[in-house]
């Protein structure tokens, strides 16, 4: 499959971008249309511990409890459209025929009933866990212990064949390097891990997902750098946390966007996955719809851009919540209420032609809350997108350009504006700029440098990336 790299922006200016609209809307599932003028709530969930005891207990948890609760509440509250997201647990990937198939088929059967009875637009995203272990081997034939690369692809096929409408994955290529680098504040290592190795791994993985989607007449959504940039974001945390500086997390997010784009370059259509906070950047480049999460995903984790990240979303998600009872019903029902009403607010703004005002209000509340929020504000996200497309055909240079552009944006705003940085955040920013500026402009030189510098990093095996 030919990978079509993005070398120009699909949006002509940042102001063209707004929630609920994308350049390339996508239709799928049971009457679902995304990116064509309506923000769709996307509800995600996790089974209770022990539900995985056997295939029937897992099916009952996912279908009879979770899916039914969601569909009942969606109709109860009058939501015209809902997407479910099922992030597959380990057992579903390890033994897909036994554990995943009954769940996937059961969910779809129930959704069809509600669609037939109420005409509510419904769809389900199946997000496959990436179980591959770098130390065992990321490619078929390498992992003799678990056969995870083979099982990973097999589980995608099982989902596509049995009821998935949209396929996604949180792929983990380059994570061993990124984890090593993040704990040493080594931006070169992180760029190598996610910007370079991650992009190579996705270029191997995503053509296969796109082929499976086409064969089964479903959609290939997109990837997310949950394993990398979200690890940075969570470690950076909030104002009481001191694990890694938020300036480092912000730059990793920018670099990650150059990698996340690869799924779409391989033919995936979107919507991209909710936990990819790099969504505003990749949407600015490619014009494909994205799902985002923020204030209504605090059931799963905190972030410092709860409102801002809604600014250009096409779907609005809760990230994930463990199924359990709350006063207002089950947890999935309660969080569906939150995301559904937020989507209703956005959709009302669209009807009243006030969507760009609401977009700017979302953006303004968090623009200066953290450097990561600042670079994801849609005007800055657009500039990072431009830096990526300038070097669109070079996976190394575009990731480097994304990082440098983000660093400069933060540096300039810290000097002149309202984005205040702690001393350590400033020190780290200066180091990042120095380190990135010192990198070569040729991919081959960068690769030679990194293969030498990181040869002893635990679990790193160049063969995983055909290097």
């Amino acid at each position: 499959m030919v990978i079509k790299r993005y070398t120009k922006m699909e949006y002509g200016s940042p102001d063209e971008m707004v929630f609920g609209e994308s350049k390339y809307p996508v239709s799928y599932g049971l009457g679902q249309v995304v990116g064509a003028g309506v923000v769709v709530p996307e509800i995600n969930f996790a089974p209770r511990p022990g539900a995985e005891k056997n295939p029937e207990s897992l099916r009952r948890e996912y279908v009879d409890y979770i899916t039914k609760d969601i569909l009942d509440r969606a109709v109860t509250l009058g939501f015209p459209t809902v997407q479910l997201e099922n992030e597959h647990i380990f057992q579903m990937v390890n033994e897909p025929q036994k554990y995943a198939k009954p769940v996937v088929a059961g969910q779809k059967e129930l959704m069809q009933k509600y669609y037939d009875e109420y005409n509510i637009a419904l769809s389900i995203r199946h997000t496959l866990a990436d179980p591959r272990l770098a130390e065992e081997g990321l490619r078929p034939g390498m992992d003799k212990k678990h056969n995870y690369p083979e099982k990973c692809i097999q589980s995608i096929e099982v989902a596509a064949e049995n009821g998935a409408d949209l396929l996604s994955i949180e792929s983990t290529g380059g994570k061993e390097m990124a984890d090593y680098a993040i704990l040493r504040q080594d931006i070169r290592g992180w760029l190598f891990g996610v910007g370079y190795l991650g992009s190579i791994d996705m270029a191997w993985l995503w053509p296969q997902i796109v082929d499976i989607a086409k064969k089964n007449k479903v959609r290939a959504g997109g990837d997310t750098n949950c394993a990398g940039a979200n690890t940075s974001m969570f470690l950076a945390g909030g104002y009481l946390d001191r694990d890694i500086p938020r300036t480092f997390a912000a730059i990793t997010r920018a670099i990650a966007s150059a990698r996340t784009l690869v799924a779409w370059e391989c033919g995936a259509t979107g919507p991209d996955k909710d936990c990819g906070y790099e969504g505003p950047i990749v949407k600015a480049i490619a014009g494909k719809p994205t799902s985002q999460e923020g204030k209504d995903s605090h059931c799963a984790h905190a972030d410092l851009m709860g409102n801002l990240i809604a600014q250009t979303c096409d779907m609005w998600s809760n990230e994930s919540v463990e199924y359990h009872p709350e006063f207002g019903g089950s947890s999935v029902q309660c969080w569906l209420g939150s995301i559904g009403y937020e989507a209703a607010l956005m959709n009302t703004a669209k009807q009243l032609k006030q969507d760009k005002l609401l977009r700017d209000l979302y953006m303004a509340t968090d623009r200066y809350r953290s450097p990561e929020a600042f670079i994801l504000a849609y005007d800055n996200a657009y500039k990072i997108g431009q830096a990526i497309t300038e070097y669109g055909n070079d996976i190394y240079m575009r990731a480097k350009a994304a990082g440098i552009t983000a660093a400069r944006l933060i540096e300039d705003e810290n000097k002149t504006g309202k984005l205040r940085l702690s001393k350590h955040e400033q020190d780290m920013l200066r180091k990042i700029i120095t380190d990135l500026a010192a990198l070569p402009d040729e991919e081959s030189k960068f690769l030679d440098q990194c293969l030498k510098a990181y040869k002893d990093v635990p679990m790193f095996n160049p063969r995983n990336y055909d290097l």
Partner: protein
Amino acid sequence: MLDLKSVNFDRILRRYDIQVESKESPEDLAARMVPKDPTLKKVAEDVVFMRYKTVNDDVTAALREYSPEDVIEQGLIKGMDVVGELYGRGIYYLPHVMVAADAMDKGVKLCESKIRGVRETRGKVVMHVAEGDPHDIGKNIAAVLLKSNGYTVVDMGRDVAISDVVTTVEHEKPQMVTGTALMTTTMSAFPKIAERLQEKNINIPFICAGGAVNRAYVESYPLGVFAAKAIQGPILANKVIEGFDWRKLRENWDKLTAVKE
């Protein structure tokens, strides 16, 4: 885009991190805490200031005057104590700790090569990530912190089968075992491990942590003791060495973990 010039952002958010930013420098704190002896001071400062390149030379110099055990205890681990203090006060961040630990590790290896037999450490900890779970960054951080506090770590890696954990604990005879998991459906291995250990009459504390793991869950099975953050690993381990069993750790958990959140 809306013009944001008129917005008073102090009415929207407050930067508590900048408000409480420490004015103390690492140099100030190190000056108070490192050993006075100039040779050991150099070794400790190599760790505190992450001087990976000079640590070998300074340790070699110290070994001319002190035993390898003393260089480790009075130089390298003292330096790491300062690093821990800087981290606890919010002056150092986690990567400082990791890089300092790399420097310490380099020095320890050099010292160990001069020791006849096996160096006695504070204790032994077996660590693993639950079966089916590839998320190991938290375990890796905790392993570094435990090692830098003088513990021997048997790191079993990630996606480890229940039976392998039990066999390794039987074989290694550690004072403590740890398990981490990100997902609700992988952490369910923990009670099974606890049950199997008890069947073999092994009653050591089983420290459990990770994204989806919570205190109530961990305290629902025997041996389980919750850790909210990696930095709590050495705090709990030190108490185990003092003689706390899993019940006593649970009883005193709030007090113990309030030291460094």
